[in-house]
């Protein structure tokens, strides 16, 4: 009798505890309430301040922060299923720069021309705006950006009297020279993030652009099997074959490459620029010995743009009941003042033009001068053109490129397959 009562009581308590914790965020019922979905990962530190500041200057609006998981794929699934079922929340969504293409094609982003004038829009980096502009309408505002850059060991280049490479040919020969002369078995010439991830596609694009290639031709047809593309992929494959890059490069995410470079085990590294503070931190073995510049091009293509940009865009849910409030919030957190705070507190660079002239920013991040010069000319992946099919397109490209890198397919076959599959995917 006693035992039974105790057991039942325990069970009841556990059940009660369980259900009181049942759901996520609480709702506030004052005036207008908007929900802002963004991961705490990259800029989480400044979000509470942004929200407080905004609420103080806009007393009728409450902002609720929906903290989403840090893995983009997870976020993507969440948002797509919500938007596809026409949920009115979240109101403002931070999306990866490659999603607007898909979202716009499916009607999952509200046009913002009513809330942002041409003058407003001109404040933002044109490369980023490329990803949200379709048919003269804009569907998003960029929050922060980064780009893939080349990092090099200044000290090693100086030691052997070598200039900072501008072409891939120069980079490869310099890498080989330095590695041979250093005689250090743990030093490799080149590392990057060549695991089967989105970053691989980005890196490949830079090689391809640097060879004069384009992903889509002017008629909108996919052109992924061109001589330029083949040159790009073959170069990548050969870098592994002739041991300029270690074989293990095919498993590296950006941080894996960064960890190696930080230990001084590589001469050149190509990853996103968010690694810069970590390389120069006080406990970094290579602090002060690192330089950063644009990713090289192939000889003869000096006008090629090799800056591939990433970053996060803010969109407004087309089913939101508070679009005006949402747009206000977006404007608030993308001002120069907010951007500066974000840069200083989190290291993520705002997607605004002219930040290279902001003295406060330059004091904190002298490298910002170089960064913004690059951002001004950078481009994004072809997500807007690919529209709703971008995820599959990217996955297919990653698969084929990786197949070539690990020697499963020849570069020619990989690109031929990519061309065939993507053309089929896009119905071309």
């Amino acid at each position, binding site marked *: 009798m006693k035992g039974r009562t105790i057991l039942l009581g325990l069970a009841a308590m556990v059940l009660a505890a369980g259900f009181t914790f049942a759901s996520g965020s609480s709702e506030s019922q004052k005036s207008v309430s908007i929900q802002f979905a963004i991961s705490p990962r990259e800029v989480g530190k400044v979000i509470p301040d942004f929200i407080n500041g905004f609420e103080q200057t806009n007393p009728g609006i409450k902002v609720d922060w929906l903290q989403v998981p840090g893995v983009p794929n997870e976020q993507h699934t969440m948002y797509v299923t919500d938007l596809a079922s026409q949920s009115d929340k979240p109101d403002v969504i931070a999306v990866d720069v490659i999603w607007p293409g898909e979202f716009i094609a499916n009607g999952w982003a509200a046009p913002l021309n009513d809330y942002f004038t041409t003058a407003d829009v001109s404040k933002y980096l044109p490369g980023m705006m490329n990803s949200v502009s379709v048919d003269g309408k804009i569907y998003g505002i960029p929050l922060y950006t980064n780009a893939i850059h080349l990092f090099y060991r200044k000290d090693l280049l100086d030691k052997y009297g070598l200039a900072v490479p501008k072409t891939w040919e120069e980079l490869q020969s310099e890498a080989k020279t330095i590695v041979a002369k250093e005689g250090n078995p743990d030093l490799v010439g080149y590392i990057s993030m060549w695991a089967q991830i989105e970053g691989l596609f980005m890196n490949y694009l830079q090689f391809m652009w640097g060879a004069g290639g384009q992903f889509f031709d002017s008629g909108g047809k996919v052109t992924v099997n061109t001589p330029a593309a083949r040159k790009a992929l073959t170069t990548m494959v050969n870098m592994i074959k002739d041991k300029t890059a270690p074989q*293990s490069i095919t498993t590296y995410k950006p941080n894996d490459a960064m960890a190696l470079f930080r230990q001084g085990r590589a001469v050149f590294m190509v990853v996103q620029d968010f690694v810069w503070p970590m390389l120069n931190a006080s406990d970094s073995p290579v602090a002060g010995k690192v330089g950063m510049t644009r990713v090289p091009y192939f000889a003869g293509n000096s006008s090629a743009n090799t800056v591939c940009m990433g970053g996060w865009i803010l969109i407004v849910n087309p089913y939101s009941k508070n679009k005006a409030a949402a747009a206000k919030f977006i404007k608030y957190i993308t001002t120069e003042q907010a951007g500066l705070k974000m840069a200083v507190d989190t290291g993520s660079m705002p997607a605004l033009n002219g930040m290279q002239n902001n003295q406060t920013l330059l004091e904190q991040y002298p490298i910002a001068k170089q960064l913004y010069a690059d951002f001004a000319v950078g481009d994004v992946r072809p997500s807007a053109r690919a529209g709703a099919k971008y995820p599959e397109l990217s*996955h297919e490209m990653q698969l084929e490129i990786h197949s070539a890198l690990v020697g499963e397919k020849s570069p020619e076959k990989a690109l031929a397959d990519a061309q065939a599959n993507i053309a089929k995917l896009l119905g071309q």
Partner: protein
Amino acid sequence: MSRTRLSEPAYGILLVLPMFVIVVGILFLPTAYTIGLSLSNFSFIKGAARSFVGLANYFAMFADEEFRSSLINSVFFTGVTVVLELLFGLVLAVILNRKFVMPGLLRATVLFPWALPTALNAIIWRWLFNPDFGLFNSILVTLGFSATKINWLGEIPLSMFSMMTVAIWKTSSFMALILLTGLQTIPADLYEAAEIDGAGFWYRLRRITLPLLTPSILLALLFRSMDAFRAFELPFALTQGGPAGSTQTLSLFGYRQFFQFLKFDTGSAVSVIQFILIMALGALYLRVFRTEAD
């Protein structure tokens, strides 16, 4: 107290009913719905037309190179891991089938891999296999093979073999447990009689142990091969299906269709194909089981 008593069978059915309802609701009906989805062009977009498309999704999947290779990967993975797990499990069981020292420690040790979450185990091994800082390559360097930095998870077909190693490490001890129980049901006097007759170790193994152990072996094989064919979290956490999709199992491929591309129609076709194959596997084993039992 007087109350109308339900008849015996009715009462029995009443007690089973709640569980029946839940199991049917969670396992049976969703599978049926998935079959239905696989024959349609379902999309999440509200208001999108949903119509019957026959076997179109199935044709699309079989025409997809990635699907075919995921299927082959699953078959290959299942075949090799199950056989090796059985082998190692059998050896371990035979050795452990004696009075041993520290039985408590032994039991805890053998049980531990089973208790580990597969996904976290995969993460642990991912760290062990790390080409630059992992334990295995570190040991190789210390032993003097510093030139050899093995790319455990970045080469084809090495990555598949690495993944199989993780699976075999995790499950062999569980197999051993199942087989050990089977071994312990074999009457000791059978062995004694054989020993008196002068039978050697191998003879005893072939003529007594294996035949009497066959039911346990078949059962273990059944469960294990079904599990191996469904492998999801191991490739998900260990390699994400890489390099170049060489460790992508059918489940991982299906997951991508559903939750990365939101293609619930082709994804369902993948589910159904996997379902049919698993049920066929089960039926096959049952067949063998029944012939053995006779």
